[in-house]
């Protein structure tokens, strides 16, 4: 991968996006009614897609260990509850997470490339990525250089993603576009195209540090970009909305948009994730409600 690959596709010519049309489509999809068996299935599916996340400077090894246990055993007092997809932490806590999750299928994701701003030089970003992978990260969540993107230096953004991808080795690369700083859906689409062509395994909306974080319109535009890329190349790229998805009801809206844009192949944690911290407990509360008929207080669910 290098800049010549980028020149094969002119990113200035990414398809136009009509924001009004996108919002209308979202409003229509948000009216899908999810009930009964369909609801329980959606709750479990959503839980299995969660990247349990803690990204605070005050994070401790103890907190990360707790989060990992929660990831593997979200709520053992009820049977048939799936583990979440991954735990997402800063690179310096990857080793702790990896050790705690040993033997489970839960992956460790590490944010990298001077997360969340990305305001550093490439050498530092690559070194940080390699370090996180050496520590045991299965997945790397990088941020794009939004400043370079907004000035139109698309090749710079492309090359940087390609270089990080190389540094990832076998680890999966999620590329965070930080859509809250891209301002238009046209930019979201263009950044998605760049990231996928440069080697992203997943494209991700947000760091969670900037408002607005994930939104349904942004997510749909990214899913449509993934669909076009799939038809163009045959490759299936994953999607991760992150930040601001706190309730089951909102998560359902995302699953509906996913189902009606990319269908069956994407309805699993290999190709779709929720970057969230509080969502998991809301999903658990609803699952317990569906299975027992009793809506329990939040005190019955561990806060990690």
């Amino acid at each position, binding site marked *: 991968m290098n800049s010549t690959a980028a020149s094969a596709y002119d990113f200035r010519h990414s*398809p*136009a*996006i*009509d924001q*009004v*049309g*996108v919002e*209308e*489509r979202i409003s229509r999809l948000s*009216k*899908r*009614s*999810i*009930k*009964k*068996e*369909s*609801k329980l*299935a*959606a709750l479990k*599916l959503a839980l299995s897609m969660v990247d349990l996340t803690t990204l605070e400077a005050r994070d401790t090894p103890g907190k990360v260990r707790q989060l990992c246990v929660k990831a593997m055993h979200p709520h053992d007092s009820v049977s048939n509850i799936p583990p979440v997809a991954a735990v997402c932490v800063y690179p310096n806590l990857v080793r702790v997470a990896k050790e705690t999750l040993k033997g489970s299928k839960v992956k460790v994701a590490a944010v990298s490339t001077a997360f969340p701003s990305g305001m550093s030089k490439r050498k530092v970003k690559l070194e940080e990525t390699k370090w996180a992978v050496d520590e045991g990260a299965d997945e790397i969540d990088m941020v794009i250089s939004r400043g370079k993107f907004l000035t139109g230096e698309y090749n710079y953004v492309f090359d940087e993603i390609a270089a990080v991808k190389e540094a990832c080795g076998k680890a999966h690369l999620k590329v965070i576009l930080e859509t809250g700083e891209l301002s238009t859906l046209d930019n979201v689409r263009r950044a998605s195209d760049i990231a996928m062509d440069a080697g992203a395994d997943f494209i991700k909306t947000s760091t969670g540090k900037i408002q607005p974080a994930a939104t349904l319109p942004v997510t749909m535009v990214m899913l*449509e970009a993934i*669909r076009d890329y*799939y*038809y163009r190349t*045959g490759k299936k790229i994953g999607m991760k909305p992150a930040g601001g998805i706190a309730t089951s009801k909102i998560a359902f809206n995302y*699953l509906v948009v996913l*189902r*009606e844009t*990319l*269908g*069956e*192949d994407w*309805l699993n944690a290999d190709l779709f994730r929720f970057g969230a911290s509080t969502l998991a407990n809301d999903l658990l509360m609803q699952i317990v409600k569906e299975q027992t008929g009793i809506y329990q207080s939040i005190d019955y669910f561990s806060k990690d």
Partner: protein
Amino acid sequence: MAKKKAKEVKVNFKTSWEYAAAPESKDHIRLKDKYDLFINGKFTAPKSGKYFDTINPATEKSLAQVAEASEEDVNIAVAAARNAYDKVWSKIPAKERGKYIYRIARAIQERAREFAVIESMDGGKPIRESRDVDVPLAAAHFFYYAGWADKMEYAAPGKKVRPLGVAGQIIPWNFPMLMAAWKIAPAIAAGNTVVLKPAETTSLTALKLAEVIQESGLPEGVVNIITGAGATGAALVNHPGINKIAFTGSTEVGKIIQRAISGTQKKYTLELGGKAANIIFEDAAIDQAVEGIINGIFFNQGHVCCAGSRLFVQESVADIVIRKLKDRMETLIVGDPLDKNTDIGAINSKEQLSKIKQYIKIGINEGGEHYEPSCSIPSKGFFHRPTLFTNVAQSSRIVQEEIFGPVLAVQTFRTVEEVIEKANNIPYGLSGGVWTDKGSKIFKVTSQIRAGVIWANTYNKFDPTSPFGGYKESGVGREGGLHGVMPYVEVIHA
């Protein structure tokens, strides 16, 4: 190798996670076994003594019996309307008229759920549409024209206007409630009284509206609602006591009406058929345009006079657009109109379903490439899958004639001039759509298409303030906005 691989690439919409049935409750719906005619503020048995069944097209079961108005009944209704006009409605202060119309609007809002459910049961349209479009828009029309009632003296600056008298109004089965609102609201706001005849397959919401009108205290005889089929409509059109005919329906019947009233003093507005061109340029926001095509043709099962039934795609994006259309059609849910997840409900009647099937045969015989998604449809009731025809010619009957069903004919074009010529090369001129990211192109193309309504980068947007109506065989006159109230008044140049 690359070619072989490309063939395998296909999004699979047969998902393991499905939506469970989510039917809107109809427990709160109270329908009478038998509905009489609404004349002079009361429900009265027809002189004919005859009733006919109105069925639910999704189940083929009868919902209720509806009176069939004979010529004698029409005479009584027109006399009631005339009496109300002479004695009350033309005499009371204009702001009083507005008060009653506001009251009707609010009552529709209060009973919105009931109206929506009955509309879906009687007509087959998905509850999502009757709930989110038909009923709110019907209320909006009453609200809007209520505002005009006491402002009519400003409708024609420098001149005076006066109401015409009694309006005979005949409405179609595709938007029963909404069309009743389009007709009644401007007529009575301007000071006329009306005799309205809903379509014979979809009379129930109009009769429920009669209940609302009764409860609103509107003076007796200002609005009369009589039910029946073509013969009832003909008696209304030919009645000498009618000052104005407002008709929405087929071009065929529109022409009969025009002939029938020629040589009389009756004024008329006709809102007839259409065969709209929906034009997608290569620089359009393609995914949103595809959504617009879907809404344009599959809204209300395609039973829409302004449906975007002819799609023109610029050749450079034709393959992509058609692929995306087919993918999108895979996700359309066809079924129970009362299910909140249903996108396409039941075809309104057996006759209409067989007409659609007939046109599909014609399309195939003409050499069109026929495509339907794989979705299942209920075994009972009148249902049809959304349908796409590619490889059709400008001379194809499915391109020239109005089907009034979920059937889209796709043609491609190379230049702007070519698409304008093709879009206009049709006896109709009701509506159209243009999709491009370039503002200048929107103005260039829309100004040259001969149609009453043209949407740019959207489709099927309605608002009570906006006039609606057709060119050529799509009709005469406008409904909606100030334009919609003017056909109900005489302008006095004094």
